[in-house]
């Protein structure tokens, strides 16, 4: 569980987010949504300790985030940024990097590390790409490799910054289904999503930001009913039911 209390943060002494008071419950999926520039990524980076806040506290499992050692924190939280450099590395080695916080001084992977890596790769159904260079994979496959890396890192809390942006729609949905599996494994997932419909469909909680402050933080149904999205984005919205299993989908229009 991760709790943010009175958090304010920004860059170059300019405040981007303020008065953030949210708790991300264990085993839940939270999507952070909002207009461009409202501070979504800032919030994500602050919560994952990549950015030092101007004020406030972050508590992880009743311990202040500042009391965690580098590697100790890396075993608790993982962060997958949106844009990444694509290094020249095989699938296997990239997933193995997820074990870095657990490697000793000699930085040699042990048997346990190798087992976990193989499991993660299998889970992501990447076994046949084991020795391939990730530069050869498609965007969607690459994203899965990174998620395998995060799996190997074996953290309770996972932050994903726009994990589906730039992906084809089938890959987008694939990734989101995987996120659901992460939740089934007991992990807490907090992600910034650009696509509002996906966010509302796949999350347990929605955190809607506006001008750096939390506008509403509640279940998708509640957020939708509040019509805050319509107000902030200046659009109209409809809830529809599709497919045999009567899944809820959301449509936005002008």
């Amino acid at each position, binding site marked *: 569980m991760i709790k943010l209390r009175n958090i304010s943060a920004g860059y170059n002494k300019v405040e981007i987010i303020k008065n953030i008071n949210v708790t991300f419950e264990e085993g839940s999926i939270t999507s952070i949504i909002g207009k461009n520039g409202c501070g979504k990524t800032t919030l994500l*980076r602050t919560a*994952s*300790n*990549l950015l030092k806040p101007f004020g406030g506290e972050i508590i992880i499992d009743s311990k202040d985030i500042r009391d965690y050692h*580098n*590697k100790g*924190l*890396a*075993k608790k*939280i*993982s*962060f*997958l*940024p949106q844009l*990444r*450099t*694509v*290094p*020249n*590395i*095989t699938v296997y*080695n*990239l997933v193995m*990097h*997820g074990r*870095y*916080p657990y*490697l000793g*001084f*000699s*930085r040699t992977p042990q048997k346990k590390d190798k087992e976990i890596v193989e499991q993660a790769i299998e889970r992501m159904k990447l076994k046949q790409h084991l*020795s*391939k*260079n990730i*530069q050869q994979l498609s965007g969607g496959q690459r994203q899965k490799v990174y998620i395998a890396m995060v799996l190997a*890192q074996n953290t309770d809390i996972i932050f994903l910054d726009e994990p589906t942006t730039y992906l084809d729609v089938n890959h987008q949905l694939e990734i989101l289904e995987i996120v659901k599996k992460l939740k089934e494994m007991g992990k807490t997932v907090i992600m910034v999503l650009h696509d509002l419909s996906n966010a509302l469909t796949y999350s347990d909680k929605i955190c809607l930001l506006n001008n750096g402050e939390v506008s509403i933080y509640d279940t998708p149904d509640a957020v939708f009913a509040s019509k805050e999205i319509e107000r902030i984005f200046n659009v109209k919205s409809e809830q529809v039911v599709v497919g045999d299993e009567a899944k809820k989908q959301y449509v936005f229009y002008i």
Partner: protein
Amino acid sequence: MISNKKESQDNRFKMAKNSKSYNVTVIAFLTVLLIIGILMSISIGSSKIPLSEIISSMMQGDASINSYKIIRYVRIPRTLAAVLAGCAFSVSGVILQSVLNNSLASPSVIGVNSGAGLFAILVAAFFPASLYLTTIASFLGAIVAALLVYLIAHKTGASRMGIILSGVAVSSFIGAIIDTVLTLKPDAVIARTAFMIGGFSGVTMDKLRFAGLFIVIAFVIAFILSYDMNILALGDETSKSLGLKVSQIRFTFLILAAVLAGSAISFTGLLGFVGLIIPHLSRLFVGYDNRILLPVSALLGSIFTLLCDLLARTLFAPYEIPVGIVLSFLGGPFFIYLLFKGKRGQLYD
């Protein structure tokens, strides 16, 4: 259909390339090559000494025989100098290219060349003819310049680009100081030319001991930390998320690179290309994993520098070409060839 086949063949090749046995084979092969190179360097020189005489005079240890003197005081120090310098510059280049994510990075980028040059010139201008002072001064100059580069970059965030820009700025500034010193003290120009071209003549075991120790220690540390270089290549945010102390580690690597290059410069002057080319050449053989790239570059760099030194002192015997010139002659065209080979295997698209 055809493309699939090619892809699977490529995969097979890539698989073989990254496998442990391939890497071990490469290292073993290069080690053997290095040993051969060392033996050749000791037995070949401008004064022809037959192998039998080399062995017998070294066994006897009679310091009054010419062949003993030549082997002991000229060829062995030179050979060791070439091996150390080649290793140091190459590893320094690997570290910088990896940590700064820039395949054109080389020790000159962090200011060590200009720093060493400045201090060497100052010694030449104000304390001419003092051998050891020049060695220590150029080493100090290299480290001071690198620290200055990092300090300036740190104030502006210590990003990779920031360090490179800071290096360019510091190098230009120091270059201006050097020119000023040369204007005021024109006699130092001779020392500067010798320094700029770089060479191994007149190197003694004394000079090497101090620098060699630093090089070996720095190499060992870099080798242990080479895994962290792999992590750094994933990007700052991902690295931090994995628990790596990014700015600390980057600083450590910069210092290691500076120590390596500075130590080598202290006894050879500037040997441009080695730090730039050898990492690229090594990557062609073993890819980007720094744990392998580091030792392979060290070996390859030593072999290449040994070869160039051998050519430098035997091609036009008794005349000696400065090693730096041979290095550039061989390295330049090869670098062009690398460029023509295309964008295959680059860090970034």
